[in-house]
């Protein structure tokens, strides 16, 4: 039996949904649909598309030129490095042949945005076929080596390791020492749980108010690229390049947005932003600012305070011995009514009791408030089950101490 029939017999291949249709593509080649230049070097050639935007260009509610307004304090907060220079910063996003890690996944398109000569330049490096990878990477290499920092969305675990795998697989050894600002990590601090997810498209829509029409869904991109390789019909690739371009513009707008949030932290009315900022400062171990954000957060809407906020502020107060501030807060939440804040109430009361017991040695008062809380918890079946055992333990210990 011949080999081909045998291979067919084994059904060794995942069924491809449909054969790529082959129509004449005259007039739909990449250089016709997306104007650009062929770049050549000692490794071969690849295709490059460049777009220039004036700094007054408005995207996602901000001007590109606003990047210059990001101050040292913002950079310090966002990535812990106040010395970043937006003129030496690149915004980067790749489109790939798959999502898996490993050496078989290729970045067929790498988009880079940067500021040069009073313009925002968006340069896209595109492989018209696999053999164009080496020349493409060779051209990309100096850009990455000369930049001071890179801004990405999930680039820490995806784009940058992937590119470095590509460099290694092509025996290049670029010397990169990039400060990496991965905006996904910051988005998660602010909006995890607020929106359905923290993907760039979602954040762009919800936060920046940009609506994309006719955008290609990311999961279709690999297959579309394979189709392009086969047919040379670049009509869908045009959309992919646009998709990549907008992702990069969104990155720059989002960075400006984040820096504005940092700068406006004393004026903002948005409690979730303050919450997010406090976590960001926590990462930088800047507890003065954490406290400022949390205190402002509580002041804005004290009755709707989640336990995470209360716990974190209490820890800071206790660590610095600021009981003058902590005790009134605990008293406030200890007296609060309503089921949804039961966790807050229990936490505050227990903290108060601990304070009375250990700092004041006032066992009587401690017992009194624990007793009161106990009765409260017992009357509520759901919360009672969660908290009662621990409260009972505390109660009996206090009773011993009172005696």
């Amino acid at each position, binding site marked *: 039996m011949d080999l*081909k029939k045998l*291979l067919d017999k084994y059904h060794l291949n995942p069924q491809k949904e449909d054969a790529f249709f082959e129509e004449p593509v005259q007039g739909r080649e990449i250089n016709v649909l997306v104007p650009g230049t062929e770049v050549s070097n000692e490794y071969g050639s690849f295709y490059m598309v460049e777009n220039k935007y004036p700094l007054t260009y408005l995207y996602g509610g901000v001007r590109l030129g606003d990047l210059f307004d990001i101050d040292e304090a913002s950079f310090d907060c966002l990535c812990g490095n106040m010395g970043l220079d937006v003129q030496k910063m690149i915004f980067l996003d790749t489109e790939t*042949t798959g999502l898996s890690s*490993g050496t078989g996944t290729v970045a067929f398109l790498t988009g880079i945005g940067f500021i040069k000569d009073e313009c925002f330049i968006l340069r896209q490096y595109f492989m018209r076929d696999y*053999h164009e990878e080496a020349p493409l990477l060779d051209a990309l290499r100096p850009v990455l080596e000369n930049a001071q920092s890179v801004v990405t969305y999930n680039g820490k675990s995806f784009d940058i390791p992937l590119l*470095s795998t590509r460099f290694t697989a092509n025996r290049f050894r670029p010397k990169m020492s990039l400060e990496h600002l991965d905006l996904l990590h910051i988005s998660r601090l602010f909006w995890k749980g607020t929106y359905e997810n923290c993907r760039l498209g979602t954040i762009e829509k919800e936060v920046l108010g940009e609506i994309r029409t006719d955008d290609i869904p990311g999961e279709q991109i690999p*297959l579309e690229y394979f189709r392009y390789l086969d047919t040379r019909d670049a009509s869908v690739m045009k959309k992919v390049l646009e998709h990549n371009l907008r992702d990069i513009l969104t990155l720059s707008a989002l960075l400006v947005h984040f820096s504005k949030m940092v700068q406006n932290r004393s004026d903002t009315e948005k409690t979730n932003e303050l919450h997010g900022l406090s976590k960001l400062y926590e990462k930088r171990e800047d507890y003065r600012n954490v406290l400022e954000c949390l205190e402002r957060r509580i002041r804005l809407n004290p009755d709707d305070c989640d336990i995470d906020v209360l716990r974190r502020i209490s820890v800071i107060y206790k660590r610095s011995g600021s009981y003058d501030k902590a005790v009134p807060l605990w008293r406030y939440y200890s007296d609060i009514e309503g089921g949804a804040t039961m966790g807050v109430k229990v936490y505050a009361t227990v903290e108060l009791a601990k304070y009375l017991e250990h700092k004041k040695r006032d066992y009587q008062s401690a017992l009194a408030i624990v007793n009161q809380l106990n009765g409260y918890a017992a009357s509520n079946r759901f919360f009672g089950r969660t908290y009662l055992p621990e409260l009972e333990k505390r109660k009996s210990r206090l009773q011993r101490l009172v005696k």
Partner: protein
Amino acid sequence: MNMVQVLESIKNNKRFGENITKWVEIPEKEAVYCDFPSAMDQKIKDALVKRGIKKLYSHQGNAFEQAVSGKDTVVVTPTASGKTLCFHLPVLDAVLKDNDSRALFMFPTKALAQDQMLELHDLITEIGVDVKTYTYDGDTPQSARKAIRQAGHIVVTNPDMLHSGILPHHTKWTKLFENLKYIVIDEIHHYRGVFGSHLANVIRRLDRICKFYGSNPIYICCSATIANPQELSSKIIGRDITVVDNNGAPSGKKHLLFYNPPLVNKELGIRKSNIKEAYYLAEQFIKNDIQTIIFTRSRVRVELLATYLKSIFFGRLQQEQKIRAYRGGYLPLLRREIEKGLRSGEIRGVVSTNALELGIDIGALEACIICGYPGSVASTWQQAGRAGRRNGVSAAVLVADSSPLNQYVIGNPDYFLESKSENAMINPDNLTILYSHIMCAAFELPFEDGETFGPSTFLEILKYMEEVKLLRHVQNRWYWMSEEFPANAISLRTSANENFIIIDISEPKHNVIGETDRFSAPTLLHEEAIYIHEGNQYQVEKLDYKEKKAYVRSVDVDYYTDANVAVELKVLEVFREDESQNIQRFWGDVMISSLVTMFKKIKLLTHENIGAGPVNLPETEMHTTAYWVTFPEELEKVMGKEPLESALFGLSNVLGNCAPIYLMCDVTDIHVVYHVKSVFTQKPTIFIYDNIPGGVGFSEKLFSLHQQLFQAAKDLIQKCGCSDGCPSCIGASADFSGKKNPKKAVLSLIDMILNDRMESVE
């Protein structure tokens, strides 16, 4: 009593003595030493001296010399001969001479890798140099992986991890691949059949990666004693290899006993339970404070025997802990505790599955009882090797069960003692397996025009992959063109990744109890089938053919089921043939299609047919390789159709049981089919085919063994105590129709083959 006295008492005890079919004394062997190789780093020499090693055994020195002179080497010596030093020494020497040197160690199991690490650490500590050694397997925490990739001098892993965790991510391992000096494959005889065929392809991929990073590592392999270590290991590493087998390790006197439990029912071939017999024998040793290990073939039997043996110490507080069970499924911590107890001598008896067969360090015990032939001579020697001290007497007892394979071994101890008949077979060019690894390799690095990978059909396969759009050929290279990560979908332990899993739903918590290949599933796992697993009966309640899952429930019934399979065998191509006058043998490609039409319920013991049911499952097809033998056409006339059919049936049974003796495979890895008049040959024909799509080389080997195989079948039948056939030889006599003695008829067919003459037929 000491060991010698215990053995004497066993010999003189009528209860045991008359069941011993052979008693072999293997004399003690003096050590053969050699000086430390002059090229070896002084620090290693000093460390060895500190450990009390002033000279090496001859094979250790030899292995070192071969390896450092750049020769790929396979070391073939028995258990406990100090094999690990054969690769530890050259590897450590390389690291000491050049701190950038790297080595990759591969062990077939994770447990073994862990154990080897400890030993290596000890030696490194003694040397006092910072040689970083890490295991890298599925259990390695993510946080530690980066450091291992960067800094590990010696990376210890298993083939599965290399396949799916290291090779596809080679760019993260540049340090390793650029500086790889040695690749160590321990227990290489373990990689046979499907697993070995996969490994050979993983090695092909590994070699490509090394070449890409400019390294050219040397292979050091270790093997137990098999007939073809050189053939196997050179097939696995894909190039010639030097054998080092001048074993210089000393050994004490060893007694080897072959024990056949007495017959209870001669006609049915039923013998006394070998578990009970093993228990009585073990008792003799343990009662006399002789440290003993007992190997059994299943986890259930391990527990059963351990429970029996604990009764030796019954009522004596704390003493029951002197007997322990050991098997896969125990948590690592518990295993370590038992291993330690064995080394310290606190534990006096351990019952184990083959989990302790591989080189895990438990020290040397005095007695070993092997309850049931482990399936290969190599395994048997490894298990027997667990008992045996460098000086002093030790004993190993093989206790047979009533299966034909066991009966063959027990009846032919000489076959066993020569131990040179067992071939580990692999077929790296098995199309399914090869194809999978070409995908993985293309994912790892694009193929270049002119590059080779396995057989000459490689280019044709690349073109096929291009056609189905898995690869893209552009500018002299073949690029991976898919979103998939191919290694994830490919398991090294099966050929088709299409196994059916068997789920026990008797308890609220469902439990996977086994698996079977796609081609056997319709026969074994059709709905209402009685599936027997470790001696327990289960009934198949539901077979989810699409999801490849069978749901079974534990039952206790007095019947078994037998599926009626219509097997069609079509010869596609003959590769080799040998036509003598009357008997012809062939080797070639066949297509097997099988359709289960119905099943019968058959009462245990009486074999009455007590019911039947339909089976509605699709036909399965398998393309594989087969070996077949034809008899003269006139035989049907001479013998009569029915007696001929009976004889062929009986012969098929015997062959199915004998062939694994030569192939180091499971009885289920091959199938035997007979045709009274084959469509292809037009003659009475017996086919033996590899029960693995594409085949892994079994039938090819059988083609060349031919007469040996039939001689073994003859020996088995002749040595069997029954008069006209029993399940221990040609099958239960109740399965044969007609008046003639089926045993004689089968023997006459065999004689025809051995003599290539027809006259012996009555």
